[in-house]
């Protein structure tokens, strides 16, 4: 679901919508064209066209990495041509069900994590169980058990996330953290990044006093509201609080004092004017563009934005969101990018598995680092790779902190994965809370109305 916001890049979802029809048309054309090519070519010359579908449209850094890896895969597999179909994230998510239940699905496709995407596709038997490939290729040794579970495990009936067979694996990872403009910070007398929640709030107040936007926040696409809620639930309480909620552990509730405390915080920040003026009219990518152009002190966003472009790019660093003092260990919302899966009706399942194995390998990790991305399977020599590829600043921090979180900290799931409709509920309720339309207690009640209803249906 983090990806729901990724589609709102600087060009934003308007272009998304405008391009949707064109993209769909293009995809249809690609799909059918390669399909026939597979049939005729495969029979006569031994050529195979592997149709690989992704939802990273607009993500130039990721697409560059995939382009390089695809060439390497083709070189290693003579006779194989990869038809890399790029869709916008929303286009991918909204059409997957129809596409995979149809007669001509892609051979490999990205599928979003969560109940409404991967869960339903598993329920309806439209994905291939990857357990045998995982043991054949040893995927357990390249990614942590927790990461594999959060990205690709679902009970066979699709009802429980994070346990059961493996259906998908991510090639790259992303975590949600705090971007800080160090130049702006210095100009208002802040010399070091906040290490505790209290310091962070002090910095917000200082920025406000100096007429700098303390925290860039755009709510119109919901992403930042969901990340803020998740991050604050974990960092104002404990990481386990968030895990309990997403895993629907007994007693987990959105009306608990822990969530109420978060609601109070969001309301206080809004009342104190810490957010971007007119925040409800902006998407997260709108304000991130402002931020990378030098406006504002902080922005809570995801590492998918590295490598950062923009006139202030070199002043920006990325840190894990500071927790309340005394909190033990590092924690951040950190999961793989949209997971790679093999549709049940894939015409080349074995080759598809080989492809997934290739792009999620630690060797491919070098390519990911060199193209400014965060590999889900971290190569052992990550730091020297960073140096060799001259990756610095926020791009390097995105990689090194990801490694810290994976090896020493707690990787957390997105809070909106809890229910299929939670993302929209969080989006509108948080706007109403920050806009002063509802009280913190009404806010948590709204969240619980969605959360409680869904967790009840899952028993």
């Amino acid at each position, binding site marked *: 679901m983090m990806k729901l916001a990724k589609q709102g890049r600087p060009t934003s979802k*308007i272009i998304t919508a405008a391009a949707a029809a064109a993209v769909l048309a293009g995809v249809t054309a690609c799909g059918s064209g390669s399909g026939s090519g597979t049939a005729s070519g495969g029979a006569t010359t031994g050529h195979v066209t592997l149709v690989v579908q992704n939802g990273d449209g607009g993500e130039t850094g990721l697409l560059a990495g995939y382009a390089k890896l695809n060439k390497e895969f083709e070189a290693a597999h003579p006779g194989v041509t990869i038809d890399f179909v790029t869709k916008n994230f929303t286009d991918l998510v909204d059409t997957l069900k129809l596409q995979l239940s149809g007669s001509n699905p892609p051979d490999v496709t990205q599928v979003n994590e969560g109940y*409404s995407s991967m869960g339903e596709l598993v329920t*309806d038997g439209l994905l291939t169980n990857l357990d045998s490939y995982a043991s054949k290729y040893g995927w357990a040794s390249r990614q942590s058990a927790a990461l594999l579970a959060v990205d690709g495990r679902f009970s066979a009936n699709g009802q429980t996330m994070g346990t059961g067979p493996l259906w998908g694996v991510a090639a790259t990872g992303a975590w949600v953290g705090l971007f800080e403009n160090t130049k702006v910070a210095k100009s208002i007398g802040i010399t070091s990044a906040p290490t505790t929640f209290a310091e962070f709030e002090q910095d917000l107040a200082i920025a406000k006093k100096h007429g700098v936007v303390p925290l860039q926040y755009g*709510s*119109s*696409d919901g992403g930042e509201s969901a990340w803020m809620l998740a991050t604050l639930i974990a960092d104002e309480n404990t990481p386990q609080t968030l895990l309990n909620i997403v895993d629907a552990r007994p007693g987990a509730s959105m009306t608990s004092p822990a969530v109420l405390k978060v609601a109070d915080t969001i309301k206080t920040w809004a009342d104190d004017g810490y957010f971007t003026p007119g925040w409800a009219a902006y998407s997260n990518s709108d304000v991130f563009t402002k931020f990378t152009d030098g406006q504002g002190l902080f922005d809570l966003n995801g590492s998918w934005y590295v490598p950062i472009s923009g006139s202030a790019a070199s002043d920006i660093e990325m840190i894990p969101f500071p927790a309340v003092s005394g909190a033990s260990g590092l924690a951040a919302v950190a999961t793989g990018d949209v997971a790679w899966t093999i549709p049940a009706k894939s015409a080349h399942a074995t080759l598809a598995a080989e492809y997934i194995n290739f792009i999620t390998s630690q060797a491919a990790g070098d390519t990911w680092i060199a193209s400014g991305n965060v590999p889900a399977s971290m190569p052992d020599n990550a730091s020297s790779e960073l140096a060799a590829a001259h990756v610095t600043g926020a791009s390097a921090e995105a990689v090194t902190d990801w490694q810290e979180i994976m090896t020493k900290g707690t990787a957390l799931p997105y809070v909106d994965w809890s229910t299929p409709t939670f993302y929209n509920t969080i989006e*509108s309720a948080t706007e109403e809370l920050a806009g002063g339309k509802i009280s913190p207690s009404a806010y948590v009640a709204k969240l619980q109305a969605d959360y409680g209803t869904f967790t009840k249906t899952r028993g």
Partner: protein
Amino acid sequence: MSALSTTPTAPARVSGSERRRHAHLVSPPGEPRNVGYLFVAPALVLYGLFVLVPFAHTIYLSFFNWDGIGPQRFAGLTNFRAIVDSGELQSSFVHSFVLIFFYAVLTTLIGLLLAGVMARCKIRGLSVFRAVLFLPYVIAPTAIAVIWRWLLAPDGPLNSALSAVGLESLTRPWLGDFTLALPAVGMVGTWVLYGLAMVLLLAGVQKIPADLYDAARIDGAGAFREFLAVTLPGLRNEIVVVLVLTVTAALRNFDVIYVMTQGGPGTTTTVPSLLVYDEAFVAGSVGAAAAIGVTLAALIFIVNAAVSRLGTSS
């Protein structure tokens, strides 16, 4: 018809027996004949296949719980009861009626004003004006939404213009304002549709006999009186057409809302068709989506039936 019968290949040339054979088939001109069905069949089949069948299927689906792929479970009227029970769904229908004011009522008033003015005075280059004012209606709704989202952005041209002339106090994050977002979206609808209203009404005005205006003027009617007594009654049918088109556009609005506000801030600009999309593609509840869609279609039908009745009875 008469021209056809005098052509050299007229039926009169055929032999006597053939003529008798045809005699019982040939009914008076204008009378319905079975062969007519043959001519409408292609359109009817396409319409049935792509409109009627899906519509019937949607009604059918609205009585089921279905995720889009798996088994369908009969749900009775629960999907419809949810519409009655859910505050969010109800308010989305209320928003639709607010949009009707902007899309239909305001649009028709502006169209009438323009048509009335253009009917009274001879304007040079009328067709150019007409084309320019009609232009918004020709642009794709998504493109319009993109343009207006930019115009209405907090640091967009509208607010910049207001600040430039010293009206800084009026600047707003228009689409992020809980009170103004819905009217802002509504005004975009007005901007799109008034050209259509004007063109339809202007065509109607040109059809009104000039001697009615002469008579009104001789009776001493002023511009306003003339408009009420001659133009308005003469445009009754066109007004009904305009209202039906614009009311439908208001009620089924999706693209503009989806691109401009996504239903936000909060739920202040949600409309039923947006919820259809959310239920079907986000929540995976196809049955609930179908129920909202069916309710929306019924509502559009009822409102338009009422509008048409208004036109014929007055």
